[in-house]
């Protein structure tokens, strides 16, 4: 299987504080990879390095086929990204948001127009084409944000707590979109604080104090830690954490 991401010894220090401490792992094409950890464990810092917006202090790796250190600009162009906090421009219309992100990722006008039609049709959104995003219900916004994040067909999409504060039914709809994307071969790298969502990943890693202390399929982790649920696995690991968040 092709690797979409491979990192080894990835480290980030701020002064004498080691935020990310020699993490090594790889992610396979089409995989849904859950990136878990307590607040302050180093997830955000690690994600920033993987997305090419922060330089590691040590270590190496590739994301979407590009070198984290030498080709970080190319990484940015070849990944998708979505978070609960930053996703769409509220004061732009639905089509304008798609147009903007398509343009940022360098797609041609004609391609954007064609893909926009197809996307709106698939989401059953055609009647909302000219609606300002701020007037969309949250569930729709979220679907649109995810679709925009993978509009340029990246090899891998990073989802940073995509479902925080969301209705249980909407969370599940969202995960079904994630499955669809994965079935189409897009690799999904996702962080979440919902442990039931950890179960929906093919593999999960759990960060503690800047290290990856566990990495396997949810079932294997439950077995390894003799735990009934991922919540319990998480608690066992986080209990060993020494640094407060």
């Amino acid at each position, binding site marked *: 299987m092709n690797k979409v991401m491979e990192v080894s010894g990835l480290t980030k220090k701020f002064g004498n504080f080691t935020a990310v401490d020699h993490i090594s792992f790889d992610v396979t094409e089409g995989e849904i990879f859950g990136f878990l950890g307590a607040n302050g464990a180093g997830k955000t810092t690690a994600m920033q390095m993987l997305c090419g917006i922060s330089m590691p202090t040590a270590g190496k790796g590739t994301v979407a086929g590009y070198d984290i250190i030498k080709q970080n600009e190319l990484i940015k162009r070849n990944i998708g990204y979505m978070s609960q906090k930053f996703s769409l421009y509220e004061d732009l219309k639905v089509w304008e948001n798609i147009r903007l992100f398509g343009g940022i990722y360098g797609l041609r006008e004609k391609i954007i127009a064609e893909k926009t039609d197809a996307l709106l049709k698939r989401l059953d959104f055609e009647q909302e084409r000219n609606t300002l995003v701020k007037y969309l*219900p949250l569930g729709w916004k979220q679907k649109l944000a995810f679709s925009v994040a993978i509009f340029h067909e990246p090899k891998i999409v990073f989802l940073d707590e995509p479902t925080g*504060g969301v209705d249980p039914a909407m969370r599940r709809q969202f995960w079904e979109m994630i499955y669809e994307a994965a079935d189409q071969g897009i690799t999904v790298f996702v962080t979440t604080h919902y442990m039931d969502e950890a*179960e929906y990943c093919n593999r999960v890693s759990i960060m503690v104090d800047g290290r990856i202390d566990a990495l396997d399929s949810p079932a294997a982790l439950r077995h390894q830690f003799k735990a009934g649920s991922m919540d319990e696995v998480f608690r066992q690991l986080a209990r060993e954490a020494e640094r407060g968040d």
Partner: protein
Amino acid sequence: MIEVNKLCKSYGKQGKINALNGISFTVDEGEIFGVIGPVGAGKSSLFRIMASLLLPDSGTAIMNGHDAAKDYRKVRQIIGYMPERFSLYQDLSVEENLTFFATLFNTSIEENYHLIKDIYQQIEPFKKRRAGALSGGMKQKLALSCALIHKPEILILDEPTTGVDPVSRKEFWDMLGRLKEQGIIILVSTAYMDEASRCDRIALMREGEFIATDTPRGIIENYREILWSVEGTRMSALLTALRGYPEVKTSFAFGDKHHITVDESFQPDALRHFLADKGFHDVRVELAEPTVEDCFMAM
């Protein structure tokens, strides 16, 4: 106690968006009352009215005998409010923020240290750090300390645990349990269904209305669907297959299992055969105990 009577609030041109649609409830002393619902349900509007920060279109919120609209000065003295967004002074240090809020209420950190001790001790080593430079979990602890420092009778917490990891969430709820024992009324909103069980009573909120108000157990006992769990391999494909089965009404992923609600005529063996024909062999189909999350999904 808290007495909320027929609160209504709408926004936008000609009141197009109904945030609150005639909400009534009461909360007793020493009770943790949870408002459970998604973003946009109206939780923040409700809490802001109760905190005297927003005027209702109609209806009243009486906080320990004081009307949140008319006696807002008194109400502000007896409540502690933690808004959804971090709203402390980013450029003041941890200690300066806390001193500031204590001074506003004519008290001092020393006087009410016992109230915040559990929480504040965890961030005290960083008391010289600017609030803006704290991590999410530490900001949350500081915000709660600031909301408690004047010894409020009522604590209003708007989504205090969104974006907080499972371990810190548990600690936070343990702390609320201890505050409750001191007689503080706690009103808390959350989108995490598992937190519902830590409340004495909960209201399930959707689109400006309380669709059910009861103890967590009462909510679950009122569940009227027939619920089964299905477990196997290839869970994504299994979910699609379950939706193709005539007697399955709804089918959703639920952690490592799927939960299905079914018609009364449902026979688990028939489902097992149906799934086996589609290539799902080692499938476990079992009756499931509903959770608050199942109840919410059924409403």
